[in-house]
């Protein structure tokens, strides 16, 4: 059957478009404010609940979608943490080295000696404390017999064998070591010998000479192999030799040679 035009869908669409099109271009904002107010009063409780739900949903979606990112971020941060911890440890070590070097440098008696700073790169494998290795050798002007000091004028030992780029330093506690020494205060003369890497003994002090406990023991310079005035240690215990001909003293070193990281080799000077 034929439908009249007024009953057709297209007519309704045209009317709606015309009416609301007119409303849009006439733009009567204030006209609808009253209705807006009423609608908002009705919508307020529902709108609030829906908005809060949407925010929570958004956060959940964001969290779930970021889990993958967070996982890889976490892995990256863990790797960086490990790397930074290692770097930190290295920097702390470098700082310690730096501080030691600075201290050694400040204490080195430049007015008397020409020296060469060296780093300890090896120790007596047996752990007995007979020798250390340093990273300077013939190429750096080091030769056999040169005295080695640390922290100013503390005698550590002497170069036993110099190689091209490294040297073996015989410590004072080595049983082969023998240094002419004298007491700082009383000037009693004797010989400091090593005791199997365990310690030092001041021997051959004449019975007529005096050894004060706590007195400094320094190199005497006798024999020419060692400059005078280098500190060996302090007298700790005094006793007579078995044959009662000489005084002996246990020497207490102010440095621990086996813990040293940097030393100085005296190349020349008095």
């Amino acid at each position, binding site marked *: 059957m034929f439908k009249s035009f007024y009953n057709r869908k297209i007519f309704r669409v045209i009317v*709606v478009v015309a009416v609301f099109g007119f409303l*849009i271009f006439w733009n009567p904002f204030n006209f609808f404010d009253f209705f807006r107010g009423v609608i908002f009063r009705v*919508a307020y409780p529902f709108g609030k609940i829906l908005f809060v739900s949407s925010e929570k949903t958004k956060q959940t979606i964001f969290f779930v979608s970021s889990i993958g990112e967070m996982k890889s971020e976490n892995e990256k941060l863990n790797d960086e943490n490990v790397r930074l911890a290692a770097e930190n440890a290295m920097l702390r070590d470098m700082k310690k080295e730096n501080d030691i070097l600075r201290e050694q440098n400040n204490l080195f008696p430049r007015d008397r000696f020409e020296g060469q700073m060296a780093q300890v790169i090896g120790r007596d494998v047996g752990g007995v404390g007979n020798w250390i290795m340093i990273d300077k050798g013939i190429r750096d002007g080091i030769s056999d017999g040169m005295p080695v000091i640390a922290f100013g004028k503390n005698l550590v030992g002497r170069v036993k064998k110099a190689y091209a780029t490294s040297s073996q330093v015989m410590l004072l506690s080595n049983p082969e070591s023998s240094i002419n020494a004298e007491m700082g205060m009383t000037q009693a003369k004797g010989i400091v010998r090593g005791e199997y890497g365990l310690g030092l003994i001041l021997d051959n002090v004449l019975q007529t000479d005096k050894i004060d406990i706590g007195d400094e023991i320094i190199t005497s310079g006798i024999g020419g192999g060692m400059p005078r005035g280098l500190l060996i240690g302090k007298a700790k215990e005094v006793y007579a030799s078995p044959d009662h001909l000489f005084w002996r003293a246990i020497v207490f070193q102010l440095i621990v040679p086996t813990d040293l990281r940097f030393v100085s080799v005296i190349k020349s000077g008095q």
Partner: protein
Amino acid sequence: MKNFFFRTVSVFAIAFFQVYFFASFPFGGQAVGFGLMAAVAWTVVSGFEKIWVYILGLGILIDLLSFERVGENVIIFIIAIYFVSFISKRILLQSVGGSFLLIIFIIIAITFFSNFLSFVFSFFQGEVSNFFDGGILFFAKGVFWESFWNIPSFYFLYWLINRMEKNISFYEKSVKIR
């Protein structure tokens, strides 16, 4: 009376969801066209004649709640449902695969149309359009993302409205029999 009540409550619920819930999820700068998809789905389910008044009300409500000029969404919805009602019978007669692709195409076309019409309204009002600020590509990106989310929205709303209308028609029949 109860039919009117159910449909009116549905209109309010759809409008509230569009304005208060889906507005928080802008995809490519555009929120999901929940109201538009509801209008399309309802037309497919019930036909133009039965629901055009409710769609009119939905458009007015969304305009009021979203502070837009009253009439913008009304015009968009009414034109969209007119075209959908014109071809919806053909959709029902098609095979499943073909109708699915046709629906996808219709949703994309309606989404494009609604965005374009919004731009036209803004243009003739002397306002700068959000869509064309970033260029044609930005507009296309917005249409793409809105279409992407409109498709599942449509199927969800179609299922929901279909169930509601079936319950209403069952109730109507049971009342008539008595």
